[in-house]
């Protein structure tokens, strides 16, 4: 079977998930994640590939891809910024973080910067409610945000692809000493 867009490496990663479950369909979420890691988003041809591998119909994959918010159905920037706007974060300044990001990046919510680096999204609670305002960028959280911190984080990401201000193993209140 020839895959349309997924690589052999992606196929291997997906097939390596099979033994974990009694049913291949259970691999659907992981397969979409693997496809997204490889392609940046999940396109319909990628969904058809996954359907082949999992012995599903394309629509069984499509309905999953369109249900969960973490699958990008369209290409996005290199760094996906997701700012939490739910109550606990909103109480401590999520709105100003959002407008600060809009101004600094020169884009509105849902848009990507022209250089293709940053996409800005506003999302619901990410379980960091005591350390808001917060945002997730790709696979890391950034918490207790201030305008200065945001500048540093964006600068770090542009230069080095990562930032030391990312939260490590979580603890709140932070241990003294």
């Amino acid at each position: 079977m020839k895959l349309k867009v997924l690589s052999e490496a992606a196929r291997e990663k997906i097939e390596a998930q099979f033994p974990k479950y009694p049913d291949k369909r259970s691999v659907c979420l992981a397969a979409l994640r693997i496809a997204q890691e490889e392609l940046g988003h999940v396109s319909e041809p990628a969904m058809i590939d996954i359907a082949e591998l999992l012995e599903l119909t394309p629509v069984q994959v499509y309905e999953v891809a369109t249900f969960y918010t973490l699958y990008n159905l369209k290409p996005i920037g290199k760094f996906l910024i997701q700012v939490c706007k739910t109550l606990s974060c909103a109480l401590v300044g999520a709105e100003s973080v959002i407008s600060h990001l809009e101004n600094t990046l020169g884009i509105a919510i849902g848009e990507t910067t022209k250089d293709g680096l940053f996409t800005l999204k506003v999302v619901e609670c990410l379980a960091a409610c005591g350390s808001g305002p917060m945002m997730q960028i790709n696979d890391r959280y950034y918490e207790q945000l201030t305008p200065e911190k945001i500048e540093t984080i964006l600068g770090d990401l542009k230069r080095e692809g990562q930032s030391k201000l990312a939260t490590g193993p979580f603890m709140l209140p932070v241990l003294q000493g």
Partner: protein
Amino acid sequence: MAKYEPILLKNMLQPGYRGLLEEYRAVGGYTAFEKVLKEISPAEVIEIVKKSGLRGRGGAGFPTGLKWSFIPKDYPGPRYLCCNADESEPGTFKDRQLIERDPHQMLEGIGIACHAIGSHQAYIYIRGEFDLGAEIIQRALNEAYAAKYFGKNIFGTGFDLEVVLHRGAGAYICGEETALLESIEGKRGKPRTKPPFPAIHGLYQEPTVVNNVETLANLPYIINRGADWYAAIGTPKSTGTRVFCVGGHVKRPGNYEVPMGISLREMIYDIAGGIRGDKQLKAVIPGGASAPFLKPEHLDTPMDFEAIKEVGSMLGSGGVTVMDESVCIVWAATNLMEFFHHESCGKCTPCREGSAWILQILRRIEGGLGRPEDIDQLIMLCGRIEGKTVCAFGEAEVGPILSTIKHFREEYEQHIREKHCPFRPNAKLVMAH
């Protein structure tokens, strides 16, 4: 804080403790799992947990031992245990800390629970956004497998157990136990009608138990220190400690483990340092966004399942959100309704359509275009959602609306009368999309 002896946060509060297997073992880790496999029968483990009074920390507070006892004893096929690490209830951030700082505690709990219900396959369902948490659990699983705590013939007892990490992909509803099962099956996370309950027809239609991270993390200590020791902590019906997540307008937000039954006042003013800027308290949500709002007059309520329920709210997930006097209640209710509308899975019409309708009315009131009949309209709509949906999401979403109207009706009326938000005079009208 030294006042109360922590159980679940104890290890991680030791400076330098990173939650690695060797560290966890040095403080007695995995001895309870070994003890149950070698010396305590599944039926006895269930009895011990029943006697301890342990109740679920995921939201509903269901007695854990009782839940396990619903698994059919003589069932010939596979049974499953699912650890609920979805942590998606707004205001809640404890499981994240339990996972990232001391993952083996939860893994050992999974082992004990699997022995109790005769399961040889467990899944940990972690929300998709927890990348770091997933890395840490996977590392801990690798360590535990290498040490032969999981896999085949554990401790030479002949007991086999596979534990698999399953990552979600962004959907609040997957914290609901049957939606979680659908999601593990590779489907949209839409809750199933109950009955049948998961204990009879759960994952892949086999008997299944779903337990929260914190619930499971308590098990090693209950086994090692005994049911009586555990039952003596907290109140008679809400035993043990609870990790409360305090956020919003407090001076020291954070995760605090205290015996159940301390007052809301002690939690907010002593433990979390009081209100920022020494302002007045206006409202508090005691148990995650699904729990109805309470007022300052409720501050002396003990934080246990019964007492919080008696004053019209619920202990839920343990997420305590504190709001000071500057907060507009209609704005807060609108914010939460945006959440519920966004997260409604769409299966049940009352919830799917009702959440959009309620949100539209709330935005209208907040934006200065409210009508006098809107408040009664909101109450009517809530009544048509509550109890008319497949899962408890319906009750959850009407809680913030009905409770804010009950406690702060005058503030809703003021918005409508004065045709603007008294707290955010420039609030614009935003319509539901």
